[in-house]
């Protein structure tokens, strides 16, 4: 067992599958290729071309779309001359008015706060990495992004909108607003960000910047 000593003195020369703990020799991954664990098939590295540039561009696009998606009505309901519009924040206040305080806080977090935080963190982080600016809180930003990742639920909110439209078809006329189109764009941007993000490259760049 000669590699035992080697492995523990040079941990950087190896890859470890985060899902099944398989030890592998580290090797270079060409752009646009993925490395999967030979044993459990989990994704180990996904190398993207221009990952940092893409993330910055998508982050800025997301921030631009975030405001119309939240300020303009998503749906408008009209029946017998009465009409009512809805924004994401109004669904939070409606739950609050129904005395469901915990649930309204959860919707506020998962549909407004977390998506905004994710966009801000990614724009800040990829901006600093792109211009090689050693800035404070870089590793904190990346860590927070990873932790927040699964708590942003805009795509599920979107499915909720579709279910609501179908439920209301019999009751009244439902018309989509500018908010709905912006929200669709925002969801596409968010999904693209998570596919274009090369986590390993981001962490390596953060390490280089913080060492200076």
């Amino acid at each position, binding site marked *: 067992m000669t590699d035992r000593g080697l492995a523990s003195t040079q941990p950087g020369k190896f890859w470890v599958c985060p899902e099944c703990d398989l030890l592998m020799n580290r090797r270079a991954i060409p752009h646009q290729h993925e490395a999967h664990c030979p044993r*459990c098939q989990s994704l180990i590295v996904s190398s993207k071309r221009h990952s940092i540039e893409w993330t910055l561009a998508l982050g800025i696009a997301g921030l631009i779309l975030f405001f119309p998606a939240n300020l303009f009505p998503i749906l408008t309901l009209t029946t017998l001359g009465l009409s009512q519009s809805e*924004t994401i924040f109004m669904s939070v206040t409606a739950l609050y008015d129904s005395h469901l305080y915990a649930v309204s806080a959860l919707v506020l977090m998962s549909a407004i706060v977390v998506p905004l935080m994710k966009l801000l963190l990614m724009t800040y982080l990829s901006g600093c990495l792109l211009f090689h600016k050693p800035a404070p809180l870089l590793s904190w930003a990346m860590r927070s992004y990873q932790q927040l990742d699964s708590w942003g639920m805009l795509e599920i909110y979107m499915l*909720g*909108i579709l279910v609501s439209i179908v439920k209301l078809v019999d009751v009244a006329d439902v018309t989509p607003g500018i908010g709905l189109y912006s929200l669709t764009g925002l969801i596409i941007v968010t999904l693209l960000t998570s596919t274009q993000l090369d986590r390993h490259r981001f962490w390596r760049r953060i390490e280089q910047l913080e060492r200076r």
Partner: protein
Amino acid sequence: MQHSALTRGIIICHCCEKPASIKQDGQTCPRCGTHIHRRKRHSIAYTWALLLASMIMLIPANLLPIMTFKSLGKGDPATIMQGVLQLLEHDMLGIALVVLTASIIIPVLKVVGLIILLLTVQLGWTTNMRQKMLMYHFVEWIGRWSMLDIFVVAILAAIVQLGSLASVTGNTGATAFAAAVIFTMLAANCFDTRLIWDKHLEKLEVFP
């Protein structure tokens, strides 16, 4: 030849996946500043606790009404299942199936899946490992989609506010349901999949 990194003296950071020597177990990661542990700490106990909590919350979530749809002054509070049945009455089979899947089938499947994974680790089962990994990834990915019903209640409560003509309010079942979903998501996060493979690797390395 397959080796477990742990038996070769290597551990990795949970957060940034930087490899480290086993001597750094319990110290902070030099790259991201989180504590490095060889395995997620108390993974089995935390997962069981959160899973039990979500199983308990699923009972009120299904028995209590989640919303009241009032039209021209008529309408009673409805539970999740009654909501699905109402959709069926209006001949909306597709959407009824979506709601049924997201709100009833997925939460139950998630609980069953996590119980199987926990028993796998605790009883040392070493068969069908890849299927179990697939099951874990499925449970982890699908968990958030159960929030669908909560968002539907939120959207309807916001938009259907036409005074006495039609109105929607949320009811306490929604809190229980949201709690059940959150607990299963946290339970899946606490589970360390490497524990499934540890036994398997022990056998491989003892009998190469």
